[in-house]
């Protein structure tokens, strides 16, 4: 399995929409075939259309806020005494996380498709919050599906969604987390695909959703490429780009423009609580390929093919599957994947928030945990960049409960 040069990663699939012949595809009910075909055609037209691209760029600049800052974490670097640590502070984007890119693009597409109603799923609540924001801005009615467990643990984002006028539908089936929210949202779409546009919140699901999402988040690395060249004059010889992965949307966007460079990609999955058998790290723990939400991917499951339970302190990473794009990057050996435990993520959150002016949410705290582990072993000529793709504010309750106090 090999990554082709000169072809966008999202387009490196075969005629059945499979990456590396093994990952992705469209395992969907017949009812969704036509809506998905329509969306596929529309998107392939739009991404070549100058007017649409300038619309996207305009909203990314004036609404999302581009570019998001690229900063050196001087104190953290000094403390760890190894590699130079930088952060791409994507959490400075409007709404506080990278989910705004996908949400904005989906709303623009929905408008072009003549849809007035948009639905989406959410885990950490960021995808839902951003979709509700963008829907409000672009004048679309919005409904968000969210696991009942996540509604409880990500209260601030739920409040934001409601404030934006979205209906938040609690999903009470299964584990009541992201996996169930995605299922319920797809079921809702099956029933209403004539009137409703569906926005899957990450690089998962049927192929077109993976494409739209990764195409949208690619903005992160477009900005970063310029910022890196500004800072170093060129791409540093030894550069590590570290990103957390749940569904994998922020990592896909963070790495995209660096695909054909020497930059090393490290994805950090949610290892779950220390000493627990449960986790949300299918790549790290050698899960088998299976089909989840319309796509073949490495997924936590039992021998029969029933999707397995997951556990993570971070709602945004608490998903049994992983984007087919990351499965492809892993098997092609372009990226490597590891995991950080709940405890490691909490410690990383605490250290970064204490020392620096940023406060990563529990999702990117997983990536910081890996950076903190690696940095002291590396030379000062080496550079680590962490995608700080979410703000800790939404995790205030959990952090207070686990650490006694919340700092930001």
């Amino acid at each position, binding site marked *: 399995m090999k990554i082709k040069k000169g072809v966008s990663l999202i387009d490196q699939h075969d005629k059945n929409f499979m990456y590396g012949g093994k990952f992705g595809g*469209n*395992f969907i009910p017949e009812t969704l075939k036509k809506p998905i075909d329509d969306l596929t055609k529309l998107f392939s037209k739009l991404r070549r259309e100058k007017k649409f691209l300038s619309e996207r760029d305009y909203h990314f600049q004036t609404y999302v806020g581009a570019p998001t800052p690229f900063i050196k974490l001087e104190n953290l670097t000094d403390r760890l005494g190894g590699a130079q640590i930088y952060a791409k502070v994507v959490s400075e984007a409007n709404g506080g996380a990278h989910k705004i890119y996908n949400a904005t693009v989906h709303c623009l597409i929905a408008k072009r498709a003549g849809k007035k109603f948009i639905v989406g799923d959410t885990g950490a609540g960021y995808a839902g919050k951003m979709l509700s924001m963008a829907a409000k801005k672009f004048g679309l009615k919005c409904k968000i599906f969210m696991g009942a467990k996540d509604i409880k643990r990500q209260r601030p984002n739920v409040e934001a969604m409601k404030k934006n006028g979205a209906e938040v539908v609690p999903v009470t089936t299964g584990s009541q987390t992201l996996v169930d929210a995605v*299922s319920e949202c797809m*079921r809702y779409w099956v029933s*209403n695909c*004539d009137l409703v546009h569906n926005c899957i919140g990450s690089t998962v699901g049927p192929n077109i959703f993976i494409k739209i999402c990764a195409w949208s988040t690619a903005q992160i690395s477009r900005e970063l490429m310029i910022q890196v060249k500004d800072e170093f004059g060129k791409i540093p010889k030894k550069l590590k780009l570290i990103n957390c992965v749940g569904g994998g949307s922020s990592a896909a966007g963070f790495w995209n423009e660096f695909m054909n460079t020497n930059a090393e990609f490290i994805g950090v999955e949610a290892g779950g609580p220390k000493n627990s058998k449960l986790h949300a790290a299918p790549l790290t723990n050698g899960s088998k390929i299976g*089909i*989840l939400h319309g796509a073949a991917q490495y997924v936590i499951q039992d021998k029969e*093919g*029933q999707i397995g339970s997951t556990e993570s302190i971070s709602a945004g990473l608490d998903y049994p599957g992983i984007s087919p794009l990351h499965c492809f990057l892993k098997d092609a050996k372009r990226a490597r994947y590891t995991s950080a435990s709940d405890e490691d993520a909490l410690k990383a959150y605490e250290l970064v928030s204490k020392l620096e002016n940023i406060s990563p949410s529990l999702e990117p705290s997983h990536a910081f945990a890996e950076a903190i582990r690696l940095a002291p072993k590396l030379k000062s000529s080496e550079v680590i960049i962490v995608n700080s793709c979410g703000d800790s504010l939404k995790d205030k309750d959990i952090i207070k409960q686990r650490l006694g106090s919340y700092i930001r």
Partner: protein
Amino acid sequence: MKSKIALAFDRCKKEKRPALITYTVAGDNSKSNSLKILNKISQHADILELGFPHNTPIADGGQIQGSSYRALKKGIKLKDVFQIVKKFKKTNPNKPIILMGYFNLIYQCGENNFLKNCKESGVDGLIIVDLPYPENKLFARKCKKKFISFIQLLAPTTTKNRMRQIIRDSHDMIYYISMLSTTGGKLKVSSKKIIKNYNNIKKINNKINLVIGFGITDKNIRSLKSANGLVVGSLLCKIITNSVQKRQNPVTNLNKMIYKLKKEIS
């Protein structure tokens, strides 16, 4: 040689009525009850669909999700599903059984291994909810080789051109989804409209056995009786749910309903 599914349709055509097709989930509300249900309702039902449950279904409504959940909680495994079919077929060798479910279970089992098990237990047909045309071509061909019907679905969103292709690549039976919905939604399209769509599909090829499913209950089944077959699923799952809640015997309650449904269309 004609398949048992084709023969079942022939019989119903002779009696000038649609085939009554039931859907229940294997292992709901227990392995033994599931078999009892099949044995009992096969007296009135012409074709039996048996769901092999998956815990992340993307096209099922609440009732079937509930049945699947109950079955999985009781620990139902694929091997049990095949056991149920095998035992049923011992006493009802000519009654067609169609397994219905999601592809991941087949993927994990291995396509060939799964089909071997189907053959050995006596499965007549397969409906795989998330394996649409044309991605299903290879698997459909494997099924045909084993004389197992691979049954495809058509939806209100399916384009005419696509319908033609699917029909051309079909065996024995095609399933028309009545409306945009997960299974068991309230019928939000008039029966008249459904029959109109149905007739348009039949015009493409009048010889196919085309059945209608999704949202069919004892209240509306009569209005759809001009179809070759009618599938009732969520209603039956709901009866099992209610029986469990009221501590009644689901087998008798289900049988009463099947009898009623049969009378409505006879």
